[in-house]
């Protein structure tokens, strides 16, 4: 039997590649994007980050004792991610968006669908779905974050980490997170939880692609 992380990579390979295939994503990774679109992307990302810990908390609170190692993993991860919404705020500031404007921003329906699914899944589907959300977001950050920030830096002529600190630092940091996530995913042995994680990763890739398209 394959370790679950390997199984998850195989089962979500096509969806991951559909994210890559999307013409808007291809164009952004190849050529960056206009400052207006980048502002909008950061405004949307703010809502991913802002809701990430509450989703994890909801999942942790519903986690059965049989998966206690995942509950502890979620605690640690929440600690790690706490306050990262401020990094997005700083990047928004660097590209000319004030905190008031950022906080007043109404997220797109695509973003509402992404966050809505993650809350629902943690609450009603299976608490391990939070791991599927993490897998999708960390793959996007650690694999595509690097090339994307390089393209943004070039296209908007940004200096050093100004305006890209959130995505850039997650591209590096999430590599570490990915290694930790692999270890915890390999402790998931029951089919119900494995199927829920896989479904969640697929849905997150799907919605994130739609968010990217809408920007």
């Amino acid at each position, binding site marked *: 039997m*394959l*370790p679950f*992380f*390997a199984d998850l*990579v*195989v089962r979500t*390979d*096509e969806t991951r*590649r559909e994210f*890559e*295939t999307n*013409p808007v994503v*291809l*164009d952004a*990774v*190849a*050529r960056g994007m206009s400052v207006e679109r980048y502002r909008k992307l950061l405004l949307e990302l703010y809502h991913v980050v802002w809701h990430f810990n509450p989703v994890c908390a909801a999942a942790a609170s519903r986690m059965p004792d049989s998966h206690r190692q995942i509950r502890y993993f979620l605690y640690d991860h929440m600690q790690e991610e706490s306050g990262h919404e401020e990094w997005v705020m700083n990047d928004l500031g660097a590209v000319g968006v004030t905190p008031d404007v950022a906080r007043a921003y109404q997220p797109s329906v695509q973003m509402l669908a992404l966050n809505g699914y993650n809350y629902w899944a943690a609450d009603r589907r299976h608490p391990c779905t939070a791991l599927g959300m993490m897998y999708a977001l960390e*793959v996007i950050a*650690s*694999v*595509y974050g*690097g*090339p994307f920030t*390089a*393209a943004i830096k070039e296209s908007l002529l940004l200096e050093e980490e100004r305006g890209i600190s959130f995505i850039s630092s997650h591209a*590096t940091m999430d*590599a570490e997170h*990915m*290694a930790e*996530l*692999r270890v915890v995913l390999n402790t998931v042995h029951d089919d119900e939880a494995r199927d829920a994680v896989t479904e969640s990763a697929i849905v997150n890739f799907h919605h994130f692609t739609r968010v990217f398209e809408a920007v």
Partner: protein
Amino acid sequence: MKQDRPAAAPRWLARPYKYIRLDWDPEFSLLRSRTCVKPIQCYSLAALSELNQVFHDVSSNPGEVKHYVMTSDVTGVFNFGGDLSLFVLLIRARDVESLKLYGRRCVDLVWWLETASQRGLHTTVLVQGDTLGGGLECVMPFHKVIFERSAQAGFPEVLFNLFPGMGGWNFTIRKAGFAVANEMILSGRLYTADQLYRRSLVDLVVEDGEGEAAIDQVVRAVHPRLRGTLAALQARRFASPVTYESLLAIVDQWTETAMRLTDRDLRLMERLARAQVRKAGGADEGAVEEIKRMELDTAWGELRSGDTAWGEERTGITEWGGLNH
């Protein structure tokens, strides 16, 4: 020329594929696969699964297919080789098992091609565009390798501190000898079709647009003496064996090496992956141009002379003027 009754198309040909188009020529019992992997023409897990499914169907129905031909449906690209973004993902996740699994699936692919003569199959490949790393490794076990003149190929892995791990050493040594294998794998440089022909890695170089006619010519020439040809090719395997065990040992070492890649190496790999994506997005320049830049960055002094051990012009030299823009 025609000796047998035209063979009906195998039923398994109707299986739906996303990244492969299959054609059947009843006259020669010829199966033709045209690959078109999205978004990047490379050996993704999904593409590997589809190819392995085709090969499994062929093996499960012995005698049905007598010729197997592979081409690419992507203009200007035969195959970019390994799925670089998947490599980055697995290496960053320090997932040795999955990377090994990927490598072994690639080995299974080249091993099937290597042992095709035992299954009563003659194999031909037509390369009409760039083929890199794993793309070239997959080409070499074919019985007949045809390149159109503008096609380029090479093993760029050393540029990001890796090496071709899925048969590159074995098949290059067998076809062209140790010296050529050393030169190609350790330099990371790209070669034109003519340069590969001179090194015996390519059997036939034809002008652009004449590849299809060359396939036809090869199949028509082999078909009447198919049994003898296949017997000879099997005997060739005894004379110069490539073993499954050695392929597996190398791919395991490849996995261990990949796990030791540094951030800088991974960034170079990402740079190449980004260039592949750029080409898939419709840009004129892609991975080949990026490799030339990487060669330039890492070995400018050596390359400036333009000389190689074979007294040939470097493949990238003619393109380097573009880098000044």
